[in-house]
């Protein structure tokens, strides 16, 4: 792949106190590429993608996002405006309406007028198919609807890259597909995506590349068809056996 590298992570090491969470992580992502990251709980998946938008600092290594180095002072602020993030717990702003959740960033960080921001927000709410909820509070929505609002909120900033940290793990089973459908559409529109998830059906459908992490390291990467057919490492094989069982 010789497309433009939008994310470049080089020998990344990160510690929480004495505990090494990430060890020598290398990963580059091309524009429009969809990466699914999986691995056991505690393997450092969240920490890795949180490093990409500067929610976590790191001790050594290099991260460049869209040509901007996170090692540079002020780099974090510029990177954040390029990168959207969707959290497991949605993290919607409970004191604001759905519409206000979406318009806050565009108005305060981008300086859009209320009118322009409202128009943009409504457009994105339609894209995630909940325009009728615009004037409700987040807590009056179902989990699946809340997560779609969270996706729309990120998209309002017109990010180049979207990070998803187990976006469906906190959802009731019957709501998972409505969120995944939105994510599939996003992938079809060419968004660069880094998705931490154990939804292997989704991975098979949209992932260009699977990344398997264990113990703070990237153990294996490969296309979904390759790794599902024949994972190279025993650890990945065991992991897949476990999660594909049910």
């Amino acid at each position: 792949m010789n497309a433009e590298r939008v994310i470049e992570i080089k020998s990344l090491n990160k510690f929480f106190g004495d505990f090494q969470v990430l060890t020598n992580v290398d990963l580059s992502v091309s524009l429009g590429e969809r990466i699914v990251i999986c691995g056991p709980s505690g393997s450092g998946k969240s920490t890795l993608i949180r490093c990409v938008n500067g929610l976590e600092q790191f001790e050594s290594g290099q991260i460049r996002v869209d040509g901007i180095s996170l090692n540079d002072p002020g780099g974090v602020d510029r990177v954040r405006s390029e990168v959207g993030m969707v959290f497991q717990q949605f993290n919607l702003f409970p004191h604001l309406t759905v519409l206000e959740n979406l318009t806050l960033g565009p108005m305060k960080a981008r300086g859009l007028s209320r009118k322009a921001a409202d128009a943009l927000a409504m457009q994105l709410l339609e894209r995630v198919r909940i325009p009728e909820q615009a004037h409700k509070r987040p807590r009056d929505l179902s989990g699946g609807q809340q997560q779609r609002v969270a996706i729309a909120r990120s998209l309002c900033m017109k990010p180049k890259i979207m990070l998803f940290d187990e976006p469906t793990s906190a959802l009731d089973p019957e709501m998972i597909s409505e969120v995944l459908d939105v994510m599939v559409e996003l992938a079809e529109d060419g968004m660069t995506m880094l998705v931490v998830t154990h939804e292997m059906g989704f991975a098979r459908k949209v992932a260009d590349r699977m990344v398997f992490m264990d113990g703070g390291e990237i153990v294996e990467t490969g296309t979904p068809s390759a790794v599902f057919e024949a994972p190279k490492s025993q650890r990945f094989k065991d992991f897949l056996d476990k999660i594909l069982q049910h």
Partner: protein
Amino acid sequence: MTRGVKLWALLAGMLLLAGCSGTGNWGWYVIDPSTPQGQSNVKFLIGGFWATIQLSLIAAALSMTIGLLVALPGMSANRWIRLPSRVYIEFVRAIPLLPMLFWVFYGLPVVMRSLGFPITIDAFWGAIITLAISDSAFTAEIYRSGIQSIPKGQTEAARTVGLTYSQTMRYVVLPQAIRRILPPLANQFIYIVKMSAFASVIGMQELTRRANELVVTEYRPLEIYTLLILEYLVLVLIISFFVRWLERKMGADESR
């Protein structure tokens, strides 16, 4: 609340009754509004209300501002930014109000003069500065616990939609924290009102000072100080009524 009022009214009534019965050595005439002397005495005492209220309000406003400015760096991830805030809070909390008042009123002008800022501090501002600083350590802690009660995910989400630190505070964290901050902050205002009595010792003409001055000329401490206590009681009851109302309102908002 209304029970509290009734109890105090009863107590005050009993005292008055005892005074009028003539069995004890009472002299309610000093504050009896039906006599010209009593009326002018009561007017003189009540005349301190405005100064006490003014003192308390300005000190509270300053304390709330200083408290926020101390609390915010106190929550930084960087310990060198956190440190001054911690030191300020521990230091200020350790100083008793009265010595601090003396130091500010008599000592601070000397310090300022030697630094090349010749200022005079009158009783009014001396009291305000002292009350504000002494109270700010507590308001800082109120802000801190209120802000820390907001989940970290809120800040993270705000930062990922491009808000700066101060925008995150202003539009996301503080509006949510305010319902946990306002009631204890209003409660803290009661503390300021009561502590403002110390301003009397540096000559501030507020409620307590006026009572003291009247006692010196009338020799009727019991009656005058009783009225003084009732004056504070009225003030504090009004504020705590407001605090209850605020707590109810904030609680209702939260469960909505």
